């Protein structure tokens, strides 16, 4: 049975990772606008998710200025899928096993 992922359980991280499934990669400001969050909040969550290998960031250019491009890694995609399955089980009333 899939378990909730501590790294994705915060709603803001779930939104961020789910949003990234809609693209191959997205520019920082585009993601910020889609999520309606501040630069610092997005940076904080990106940093945490990058640390566990769920997202990847690289420097690039957009409209002539330097910016950051963000994408979901295969590991992040797998983690998100398992987390969503666990959330759906929770919604359906199936108890999840606590991680020991």
């Amino acid at each position: 049975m899939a378990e909730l992922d501590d790294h994705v359980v915060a709603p803001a991280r779930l939104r961020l990772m789910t949003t990234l499934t809609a693209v191959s990669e997205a520019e920082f400001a585009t993601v910020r606008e889609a999520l309606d969050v501040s630069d610092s909040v997005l940076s904080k969550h990106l940093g945490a998710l990058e640390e566990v290998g769920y997202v990847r960031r690289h420097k690039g250019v957009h409209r002539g200025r330097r910016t950051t491009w963000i994408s979901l890694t295969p590991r992040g995609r797998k983690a998100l899928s398992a987390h969503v399955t666990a959330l759906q089980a929770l919604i359906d009333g199936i108890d999840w096993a606590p991680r020991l």
Partner: protein
Amino acid sequence: MESKPHRPTATEASAALLDAEVARARLADHIVTPSWFFASIGVAIAVQIATTAAGLGGDAPRLIAGGLAVFAAVAGIQLARFRRANGVWLGGFASRVVLGTATAASVTYALALAAAIWAAYGDRWWLMALWSAVGGAAYALSGGRWMQSYRGDPAAHARGESLAWLALMLAAGISGLVVLVLNA
């Protein structure tokens, strides 16, 4: 140190999932194609089909290279405009819409190309032009349909074929053209 995250209740889980899907849909809904995108891709494909057919029928391989160069230039410019306009890169869009790996685009392209080559070998130039136009229009329509499918389910359509697969298809296409030119 990060504290243990709060475990959601069923209601919170439901709200979080819904909220995440709304954010994803918002991003997908804001993705637009630049002006004249499908028309230019359709025209470039029509030119590429026509030059390939005319090059083979008229024994002029430079025409084939010219047509491929026109398509490569239009595709490159339009993909750069797409990325600039949206602030995203969509692998599915690049491969399915621009490189024509969607089933409808690839099947109609192959049929139109074969028909145009057949017409060119018979010196039926008006028919060759007609098949080229049909191929370009079908390619563009297939792209428009892909965009609608993408908006309906962005996660299922966002990713394109792997680079290895695209390289294999490109190599197969070039090999096929070389064989046709050598046998012309």
